[in-house]
């Protein structure tokens, strides 16, 4: 078999076929790094390409993300030590009062494609919950989604907690959503604003001191 078959199965969202191909590849003794990079990640990239071309939509992105995580879970135990370095840990959610989740789910999918460990903590999340989750998960970046004028100020609350608790330097804070902007980010003391999901990867890469992957 060829790892490109895995790429194709993931890109076509064929769950059972993709998982069995990964198992077959491991059983056949193929290089797990090759399976990961040239099979699974390549499949995810193809999903991203189809999304950009409007052949796929948000649901396909989410399905692809879930399928790839299941495939990666099969490969991970076989990976050589030190080869699974992730880009960073990000927690994402919509701030208190905000139930809009489509935007941050897009961001979540794009960040996962770029190798980030992403934890979605839901909608209508209180500022302190973001802080507690960031500490618990040792998050490098806290991503805040605010769709409304009345919920945007809640992003600043998260920054205020981090500052007042003396842990501001432990976590970067980024914002997005219909009412967010560069100006709002600066005025609230956040570390950046991304107008869309692709830009969010570039922003996170910059904050993590990495060359852009998007």
């Amino acid at each position: 078999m060829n790892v490109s078959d895995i790429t194709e199965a993931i890109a076509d969202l064929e769950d059972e076929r993709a998982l069995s191909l990964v198992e077959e590849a491991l059983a056949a003794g193929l290089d797990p790094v090759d399976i990961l990079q040239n099979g699974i990640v390549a499949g995810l990239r193809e999903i991203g390409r189809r999304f950009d071309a409007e052949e796929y939509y948000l649901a396909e992105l989410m399905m692809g993300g879930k399928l790839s995580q299941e495939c990666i879970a099969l490969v991970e135990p076989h990976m050589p030590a030190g080869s699974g370095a992730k880009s960073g840990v990000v927690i994402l959610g919509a701030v208190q009062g905000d139930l809009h989740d489509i935007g941050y789910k897009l961001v979540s999918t794009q960040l996962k494609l770029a190798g980030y460990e992403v934890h979605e903590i839901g909608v209508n999340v209180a500022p302190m919950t973001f802080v507690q989750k960031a500490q618990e998960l040792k998050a490098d970046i806290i991503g805040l989604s605010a769709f409304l004028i009345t919920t945007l100020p809640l992003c600043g609350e998260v920054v205020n907690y981090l500052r007042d608790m003396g842990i501001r330097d432990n976590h970067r804070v980024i914002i997005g959503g219909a009412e967010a902007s560069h100006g709002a980010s600066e005025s609230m003391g956040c570390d950046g604003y991304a107008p869309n999901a692709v830009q969010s990867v570039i922003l996170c890469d910059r904050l993590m001191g990495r060359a852009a992957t998007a």
Partner: protein
Amino acid sequence: MISILEFQRRSETGPVMEVNDFDMLVGKRMREIVKKYGITYNPEELVVDDETADKVFQAAVEYMSTVGLYNVSTFRQIQFTKEEIEEIARDYRENHRTQVFGTGKEEILIKPRTSQDTWAPIAMVGSTGPIQQDWHIPFTQLLAQEPTNHGLGCSGCGVSVDGIEPKAGTVTELHCALWEQEALLEGLRRAGREGMHLGVLATVFTFGGVAAVMQNGLRNKYNTQLGIHLMAEQKLDYSRLLTAYFCEQNGMQPWTSATAIIGGLTGSPAGTAVGLLGNLIGQLAFGHGNLGSLFTSHLGGNSGTREACWVYSAAGRAVERHIQVPLGGTASANHYYRGTRVCFYQQLASMTALTASGLAYLWSVGATGLETRVCVNAMQGISGMPRDKVNTLLNTILAKVDEVMPEETRTERYRELPEFYDLKTLKPKPEFLATVKQATEDLADMGVPYSSELVID
């Protein structure tokens, strides 16, 4: 009809699932359903035929009876049977709802409308994006002083009041909302239209805040709707059920505003149309409102496109044929091009598609008073226009959008009223006036049937 109490029971007893699993269910089922019913987006026929409208309705019934809603407060799916969905549609179809808003000389009646009716939809207006305190009152006045505007669909949301930002769920939210209601009423007074409908209460979202504003007497039953709208896709929480119950018990109208996003979980324009209708049915099921409204955009916020026009028409015509609730829609555009021909053409295209698809009231969002004057004038001429003629007109307008878009500048943020109007004289600035005149002439050349009463000044 299903009672609101029954919605709570189903919210507490339905299948438990993670929100992401519900989202996946939405996505997967929608693709299966769209394929099963053979619904396809046709850019040549943006106002859809009867067959497409019927398929969209049937697909929405199946979608709602297999996916249902999701209560984020309880992490449970709210399920319906096919018979319950059909019964809701039948009840609306056989017992037509109407709604009166406004008072005195500003009283308006909203009733069901069809795509063949020659009378124009009720003209609502309102904002898109934030309103600054210094132009809040002039903005309302500008919209209200246009005699052809009947009411405000959404009165906008202020950024701050004397430096205090409205923060959801806190005292500042209510503080700013109270100031805003005074400002809205002042805008109406200056225009001599105190009794005008003000639409959905926008700044204040929490249930406690809504109750406080109502109790204060700044808003009344005749000029207010309260938001119970589902989030895309198909999600509600207890605050929506509480507000629906409050409306029902106090004789108020809920703001039943369906949303589905093109490219989102429901995917293609075909899936989005089905999702939009399903979302509307879900809200009618628990909100029991006399009105419904539709909103769609692309993921990036763009509206007024071919896809958006088609989605509006497919869902709107399905309502016309199978539910017949008085339906509102958003004559919208890509507001990052505000003040340019792109925005103006797209708004006219949206309005045309909605008017020709049987909508009963239209909300020209984000437009200035002058723009709404032009839009409403065109709406009169488009009402009753044959479907093939409308489709030709839409394709002409949207081809023009394709042509001029590369020549115009897309801004990062919405441009605000003071860029277009002199706030002291309340007159459009010369450059904006010239753009509106030119765009109107272009649209007339394309076949938009303006009446001779239209004066642009």
